[in-house]
């Protein structure tokens, strides 16, 4: 049962092969027995899950069920869940019981989804390895000595270890696509503004976007059908009709024009990942696609620009954690400044503090033009590169990451080395474009991902392209040994 996709589970619920309560209980039992190995959950919400499953079974019996009714899944612990701890994997919010639901959470509740729990992540979504979590690193189910990627590492590990059939994630610089690639699952970062950010704890507001992490593209389409849509509570939410993301899955790819950016196949790219990526492109040629080389000349500048914009926005967003209204407060503050400084100094981990300080520095008097303004100018150059290429091709493809999963502890002492792992994913966030990662092979027993990039609001196209690839290949059905 645990290898079934959301689409297959929905069929099983509909035809009465099992109830949502049975399905949910089976997953809860499996989490209890297995998650010690992976540390993929921060909180398991057994009682609420069984109550939601019971309500779903009643809706199914009454004939009022929708496409998502009764399906279990997990939320990244960055989405506020009313009455349930929402920690963002930080000591700062270890005691934070959210008084309200994120819009994404409301949408899954309204769709009849069953939340199994809240998944592990890098603290405040700042990281590419899940090692900055206050609750300890999540482990990669393909090799538990390796990182699952990050920041949505717990979501990726939970899906890969079959501790949830699907999970939500968020992506600020690659935090859905990179862990999806490293754990051998499917991940989609939608267009900026497509999924509401309300109640999704803010890291870098002009880059953050929520999206699905699943076994298949078809499941990602089912998830996005629930998640997407305008929200008046999010000031950058886009007011635009939501299509049925499953509608175009079966369109043939004959005539699809694929662009391969030469900058994605240079320098530091692992040679075996390059081979797997090229092999995947060959599959698309067999499906009728044509391929041409394209250029995104400012790709290398995306990391420097990102490491100004994201920390600058983070330093502003995280100023709300002051030990006064909610979250961690230090013991016995002597005055207000001591209260602020010690609550924040003790409540935040090292990577979060580094990024807040970089941001505070970049925004401080005299430096704004040299850093933040400059980064915003480079951001436009990066977007214009994509716009030019996407006027010539339907989708852009390349590797999701330059390397497979690395060992836990391998890069923690060198933050800049860690940042370079996001070289292929970060530019999309700066441009606001949608992107997916789908499994396309393994290197030394560790999965690698193919990244598929499309134009604004081309999620249907991406899902169609990914689904056709998954009909032609079986990388996405492979599981780690012993799972």
């Amino acid at each position: 049962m645990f290898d079934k996709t959301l689409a297959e589970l929905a069929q099983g619920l509909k035809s009465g092969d099992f109830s949502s309560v049975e399905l949910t209980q089976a997953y809860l039992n499996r989490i209890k027995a297995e998650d010690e190995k992976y540390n993929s959950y921060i909180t398991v919400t057994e009682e609420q899950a069984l109550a939601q499953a019971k309500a779903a079974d009643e809706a199914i019996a009454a004939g009022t069920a929708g496409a998502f009714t009764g399906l279990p899944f997990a939320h990244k612990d960055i989405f506020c869940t009313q009455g349930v701890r929402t920690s963002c994997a930080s000591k700062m919010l270890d005691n934070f019981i959210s008084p309200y639901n994120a819009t994404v959470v409301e949408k899954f509740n309204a769709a009849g989804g069953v939340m199994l729990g809240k998944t592990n992540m890098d603290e405040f979504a700042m990281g590419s390895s899940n090692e900055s979590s206050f609750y300890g690193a999540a482990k990669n189910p393909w090799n538990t000595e390796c990182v699952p990627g990050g920041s949505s590492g717990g979501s990726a590990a939970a899906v890969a270890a079959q501790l949830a059939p699907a999970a939500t994630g968020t992506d600020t610089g690659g935090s859905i696509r990179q862990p999806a690639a490293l754990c051998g699952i499917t991940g989609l970062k939608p267009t900026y503004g497509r999924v509401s950010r309300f109640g999704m704890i803010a890291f870098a507001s002009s880059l953050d976007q929520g999206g699905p992490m699943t076994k298949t593209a078809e499941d990602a389409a089912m998830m996005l059908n629930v998640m997407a849509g305008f929200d008046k509570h999010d000031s950058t939410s886009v007011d635009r009709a939501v299509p049925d993301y499953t509608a175009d899955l079966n369109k043939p790819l004959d005539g699809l024009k694929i662009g391969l950016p030469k900058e994605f196949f240079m320098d530091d790219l692992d040679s075996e990942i390059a081979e797997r990526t090229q092999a995947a492109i060959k599959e698309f040629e067999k499906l009728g696609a044509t391929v041409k080389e394209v250029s995104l000349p400012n790709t290398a500048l995306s990391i420097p620009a990102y490491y100004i914009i994201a920390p600058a926005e983070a330093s502003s967003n995280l100023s709300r954690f002051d030990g006064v209204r909610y979250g961690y407060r230090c013991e016995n503050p002597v005055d207000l400044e001591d209260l602020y400084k010690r609550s924040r100094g003790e409540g935040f981990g090292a990577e979060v503090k580094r990024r807040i300080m970089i941001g505070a520095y970049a925004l401080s008097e005299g430096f704004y033009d040299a850093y933040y303004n400059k980064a915003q100018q480079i951001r436009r150059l990066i977007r214009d590169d994509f716009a030019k290429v996407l006027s010539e091709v339907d989708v852009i493809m390349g590797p999701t990451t330059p390397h497979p999963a690395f060992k836990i502890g391998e890069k923690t002492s060198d933050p800049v080395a860690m940042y370079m792992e996001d070289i292929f994913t970060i530019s999309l966030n700066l441009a606001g474009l949608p992107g997916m990662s789908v499994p396309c092979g393994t290197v030394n027993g560790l999965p690698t991902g193919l990244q598929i990039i499309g134009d604004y609001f081309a999620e249907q196209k991406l899902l169609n392209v990914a689904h056709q690839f998954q009909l032609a290949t079986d990388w996405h059905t492979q599981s780690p040994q012993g799972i």
Partner: protein
Amino acid sequence: MSLDRSDVDKIAHLARLQIEEQDAPEYAQNLSNILDLVDQMQAVDTSDVLPMAHPLDAVQRLRSDEVTEANKRDALQAIAPQVEKGLFQVPKVIE
């Protein structure tokens, strides 16, 4: 770009972050490395490029000035570290 100990103290103060004495050298080193990385931007001529704040060049949406939320003070203060008579408590700021 190389930051020294006093730069780290100054930035940490701006960000209202307590940094432990023994951790300061490592922060100085890491922050300097990050600034070296971002300084790659300075090699690019962007004199004619408009800064981009939003990928779709959207502007701030406005709404009419109406009360839409109910008062949830009790629920919101139930998770506060220290509350008295409906007020958030902090150490004395006025002598």
